């Protein structure tokens, strides 16, 4: 029997100098473990990776070197220790991978391009496509092309994919599933980019967990305030009830109806980056109904899980969101209500986080 010790070294791994991202199929489970840790915490050390994964120091060393060569991770800034040489943390390389996220909202569609640490490099807002079945999706394709063109040529090979955030609106006449399936296959066919689809609220919560204020939070309740109010429960960084279609009609659409009934202007509700006029008592009443609904959900969930933080994401102006958070905190004093920070469009950024989680993280 030949002595395998003296066979040629296994060339499968790493020390090649290929540029671009490894194909999905060869991304090993262990590499995904390391990238999951980094996407969750932003910065780590080889010691911590070893402790969290149970892998030996030498295996971790090979893995990290491989990811460094691939350009996905980099050495962070050296931290001077009390004794001995400085510790050099391992961080994600912002330029290591890019992703495009598309979210179709009730009034418009957002497209973002984000880098590996979640910074938006490109953002465009498009009117929603006509519901006409014969419409092709050329406006999306064009915008995706523009987003890709933003990237320097070398970085284009590092596009992890396109994430589509899919709304489930029961009341809406359109067949979103079919619409998005068509869009998915069209993008994959025409642009040759992998497409990943998820419910839009779940995507927004994932984006908040990966890149936003919820990064350090293992357990929290996530509210998305859009036309309606949606909730998601995140336990141990995992989002539960991912495709729930339950939502509450206490969102911007409800406010719009109230305002319209009073003859007040409603256009600012849907305008981007616009402050709202003084809506007076109508706004106050709506905020109360909204926060009451949120508190009912919170109380219901707290029968089963103890949690201390609520994250609110919305396209509503910041002062409105702050006021909602304050109301929540005053009604439930032990609760911390914080604002999401995955602007410019939480759902689109969340959609863009999908290709990262699908390609780089463990399930």
């Amino acid at each position: 029997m030949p002595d395998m010790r003296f066979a040629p070294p296994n060339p499968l791994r790493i020390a090649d100098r290929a540029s671009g991202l490894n194909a999905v199929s060869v991304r090993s489970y262990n590499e995904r473990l390391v990238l999951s840790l980094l996407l969750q915490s932003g910065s780590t050390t080889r010691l911590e990776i070893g402790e969290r994964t149970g892998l030996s120091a030498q295996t971790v060393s090979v893995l990290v070197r491989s990811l460094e060569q691939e350009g996905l991770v980099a050495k962070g800034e050296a931290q001077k220790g009390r004794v001995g040489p400085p510790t050099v943390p391992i961080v994600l390389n912002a330029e290591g991978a890019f992703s495009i996220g598309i979210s179709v909202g009730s009034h418009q569609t957002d497209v973002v391009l984000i880098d590996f640490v979640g910074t938006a490099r490109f953002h465009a807002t498009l009117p929603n496509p006509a519901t006409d079945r014969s419409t092709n999706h050329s406006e999306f394709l064009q915008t995706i092309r523009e987003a890709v063109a933003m990237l320097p040529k070398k970085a284009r090979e590092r596009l992890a994919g396109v994430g589509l955030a899919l709304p489930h609106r029961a009341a809406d006449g359109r067949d979103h599933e079919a619409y998005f399936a068509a869009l998915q296959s069209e993008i994959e066919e025409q642009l040759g980019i992998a497409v990943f689809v998820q419910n839009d609220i779940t995507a927004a919560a994932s984006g908040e967990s990966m890149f936003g204020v919820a990064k350090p939070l293992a357990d929290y309740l996530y509210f998305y305030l859009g036309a309606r109010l949606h909730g998601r429960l995140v336990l141990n960084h995992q989002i539960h009830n991912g495709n729930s279609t339950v939502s509450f009609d206490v969102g911007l659409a409800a406010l719009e109806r109230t305002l319209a009934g009073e003859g007040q202007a409603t256009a600012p509700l849907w305008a981007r980056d616009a402050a709202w006029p003084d809506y007076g008592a109508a706004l106050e009443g709506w905020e109360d109904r909204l926060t009451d609904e949120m508190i009912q959900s919170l109380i219901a969930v707290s029968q089963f899980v103890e949690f201390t933080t609520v994250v609110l994401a919305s396209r509503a102006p910041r002062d409105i969101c702050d006021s909602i958070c304050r109301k929540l905190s005053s009604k439930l004093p032990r609760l911390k209500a914080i604002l999401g920070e995955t602007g410019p469009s939480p759902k689109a950024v969340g959609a863009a986080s999908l290709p990262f989680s699908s390609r780089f993280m463990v399930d």
Partner: protein
Amino acid sequence: MRTVLCYGDSNTHGQIPGGLTLDRYGFEARWPGILAQALGSDWRVIEEGLSGRTTVHDDPVEGAGKNGRTYLRPCVMSHAPLDLIIIMLGTNDLKARFHQPPSEVAMGIGCLVHDIKELAPGPRGSIPEIMVVAPPPMLDDIKNWAGIFKGGPEKSHELALQFEITADSLEVHFFDAGSVAACDPLDGFHLNQHAHQALGLALAREVEAIGWK
């Protein structure tokens, strides 16, 4: 208290570029000394650098004592338990008398790694951490050593890649000394004080990065 063994050739011994075999930098100036100072009092650094040491070859000219494989066994056993073994060898394998391509030199490094794993000289009979360090490539002009190392400078540029492939497939740590230090033009293949300094500090960071509880 942790212990690291620095197993190498003249560039671990601290031979002065352009000097004679007996010309050696003082301990504080050699990279193991720099390493010791940077790691601090938690670490004991053992130097095992011999001029002319090969990975696995008895040297037909310089003698069997230059064989890095036969000496490794008693050496490691006498210093056990060892937390870490740093191996920086390979340059001498490029002497014309051995006719070795870079991949074969890497095989020699692989042998040493296998031998260490078999000996398991780590704490409580475990396999210690092993770090393969690729030596900085030789310069094109190696003065009156050109004949002895005929074809060597060219091959030396390939050692880092071949060593890394070996380190990856055997799952051990790897560092490319050429990324922080270069050989001195006085003889084209020895490290001067600046290179020792840079290498010692870089290796201290690498040692730290392994992560020790």
